């Protein structure tokens, strides 16, 4: 029986991520939800101006988009094109048309961000993130730390706000500069979604690497709001029994909010699978480009410094 222990490294996460991106490049989809006034459009403005890749954004509040004129290349009634290649499209004519338009863009955006309306259930919108050529990355929900408690208790909109928060992989607790304390809000949030990564922010400013989680090499630099991050890597050759993978996920400390990699599952070893974990949601799907797939298993996990145990991957070790 072969023995393959995971070689661990604090820095080699970059390689794994690059491999995933190289061989499997569906457009990654992030859904932004949150109730009216939480700061969704501000977040869209923020990420369009900070983008380091070609992002397509689908939005409802087209009239509210406020992009520095110097960044705008062209604009018409339904689309704004930026000088950095990003585009911003109105959802006025529905999802099908907007997704179709984005798919036809040249250069093809590497990332799609969909801003759900203020009353939409982001989970329903996220279902579009599985369209052919796309892969859902995360549902980010923006919450207004000043008004959230009141909104949750509101007889008309309380349920809407709760459903939105429950669907989140990442919650941006926004406007914390205006809130005297956030402890009460955090406790309340725990009741509806204790699994999501919670990030406090002001003016919807969040580290894009944290939001998108693709370039993990940059994550250890960390955002001001959440402190330092570390990543650990696993490599092995033998296909992993599905149960072992599930056990690994279940044993991960709850602070670990992201993991990603390419694995062979013992039940279907001929198909290289992409593994993605965001918050408590994870998925395995067949790699798009199977011909050039890397050999064996390569996984990386990311968590706040000091939270990922050295033997995090012990369930993946094949015993003699």
């Amino acid at each position: 029986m072969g023995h393959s222990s995971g070689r661990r490294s604090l820095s080699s996460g970059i390689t794994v991520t690059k491999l995933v991106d190289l061989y499997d490049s569906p457009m990654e989809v992030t859904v932004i939800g949150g109730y009216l006034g939480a700061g969704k459009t501000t977040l869209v403005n923020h990420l369009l101006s900070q983008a380091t890749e070609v992002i397509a954004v689908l939005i409802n509040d087209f009239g509210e988009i406020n992009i520095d004129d110097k960044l705008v290349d062209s604009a018409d009634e339904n689309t704004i094109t930026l000088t950095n290649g990003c585009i911003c499209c109105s959802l006025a004519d529905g999802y099908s048309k907007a997704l179709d338009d984005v798919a036809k863009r040249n250069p093809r955006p590497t990332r799609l961000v969909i801003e759900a309306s203020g009353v939409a259930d982001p989970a329903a919108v996220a279902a579009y993130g599985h369209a052919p050529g796309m892969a859902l990355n995360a549902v980010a929900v923006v919450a207004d730390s000043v008004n959230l408690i009141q909104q949750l208790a509101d007889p008309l909109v309380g349920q809407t706000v709760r459903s939105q928060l429950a669907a989140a992989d990442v919650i941006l607790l926004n406007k914390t500069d205006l809130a005297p304390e956030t402890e009460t809000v955090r406790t309340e949030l725990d009741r509806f979604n204790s699994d999501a990564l919670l990030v406090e922010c002001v003016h919807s400013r969040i580290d894009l690497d944290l939001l998108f989680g693709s370039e993990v090499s940059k994550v250890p630099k960390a955002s001001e709001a959440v402190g330092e991050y570390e990543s650990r890597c696993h490599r092995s050759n033998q296909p992993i029994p599905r149960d072992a993978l599930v056990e690994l996920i279940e044993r991960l400390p709850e602070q670990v909010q992201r993991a990603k990699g390419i694995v062979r599952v013992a039940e279907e070893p001929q198909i290289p699978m992409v593994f993605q974990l965001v918050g408590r949601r994870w998925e395995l799907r067949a790699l798009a480009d199977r011909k050039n797939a890397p050999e064996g298993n390569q996984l990386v996990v990311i968590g706040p410094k000091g939270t990922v145990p050295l033997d995090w991957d012990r369930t993946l070790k094949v015993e003699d």
Partner: protein
Amino acid sequence: MDPTQPFATAIAVQGDRIVGVGDREDFLDFPQTEVDERFGNKILLPGFVEAHSHVMSGALWEFPYVGFYERSDPTGRVWSGCQDVDSVLQRLIQCDQEMVDPDQTLVAWGLDPIFLQGERLVAKHLDQVSTKRPIFVFHASGHLATVNSEMMRQSGIDQHTPTPGVAKDDSGVPNGELQEPAAMSLASDGLATIFIAMMSSEAKWSYALEARNCGVTTAADLGTTRLAMEGQLEAWRQATDDPQYPIRVVVAFGNFGSDGTPANIRDMAEKAVHLREHEESAKLRFGIVKIVLDGSIQGFTARISHPHYLDPPPGHPGNGLWLIPPEQMPDIVSAYHQAGLTVHCHCNGDEAAQVFIDAVDAALQTHPREDHRHTVQHCQLTTEQQYKKMSELGMNANIFANHIFYWGDQHATITVGSPRAEKMDGCATAEREGVKFSIHSDAPITPMGQLHTIWCAVNRLTASGNILGPEERIGVHKALQACTIDAAHQLLMDNEIGSLENGKLADFTVLESDPYEVEPEELKNIQVWGTVVGGVPFQAGSQ
């Protein structure tokens, strides 16, 4: 519907207008009068007005119908109901054989699994129809589709497809049922075929022929057409300018893509006003704005007050969905109100109705305006208190009477329970509180047919034959008013249509028997000869 002259035996028409109503002798001394006896043994009513329907009602008839209830297509052909999975398959096999191109997608519509006994229809059944051509069966609810294996193969739907709503069997293989838009859009070829048909010029014609066949002379396309989309206004103009186009259409301005900000709504309102002031013609009208505030009761997505739903499906959050944040409603309503437009707001649930009524109240406080005719659409759970307030504010109602027949049994046992179901679609309450109201089909949600809708409001019989809430039944005369003069009122056309009076347009519904004479249970069985629109006769079922 002219209370000073409820009945007459002759009517004089000059051009497209009525010039006299009375008896034949009254008109014999009119100069150059021709006597037209063709309707001598028929009944003429003011033309029926369907104030809430959707233009795609006609478009779906481009595809074979596989629904449970018998239905007539725009050519008058009667499609029998498919009462079990087998008869659905038999119809599809026949269509498959009639199709010339072996690769063309077979699209069908109207499937409603609730009514079908036995195993649920899935891909393996559709594979009996064809394993070579893709098949896409659109459900009656509009929320689901069932496809065959070839459609899944071509669309790349397999056991690795992660999209929620792609239903899978116990071994993880998709079974062909696609639930909700995101999953349906994976089979984009099928869905796109339907959408293209809905936006086509042919759809505008089949909608009108369907309306004509049930005696309708004016219909409102309530917020379906994206008027801002290139070519849509022109397509409507082209259709309605044709002398053979058999109905007048009120195309409501949908609040599509609005983000609810005051500047944006003012901009939308300006466009709507422009349409009304510059783009109207004899058979094409504007001036109504349609807003959708909540979902549907049978889909458990309408916003209803405590104690909410009786027996919702597992995982239901308790109450329905808002499609617009309630706190944005005052701004939205106020902007359209100030622009002089009439707002028709979809409110199935009472909680939604209250939000709309409050928004109208607020708009009237700051900008008093007489005769605004803002209308609550559907009004399914609207309460007596709400009707009182609507009456005070001068609001109208359009009540979804057809629900009593089609879903009344389900409302009594599953959605809200008997006590509330008996008060649903309460026409008698609206009448008592003095609210002008219409009744509607919401076609294609239920089949268009004013006589059937009148029958529902008068009898309140459910599909299983129970009388649901006898106290809410209304009289035949009131129901006829609701489908003529009062429907015209909420569409801002009561000065031109809705009653047979001097100077009004010569729009008539021509029936074979008198609705005032037949037994109430027989109202829906009255034969429709056809219509007269602007003095021009249009016979039902003709091409």
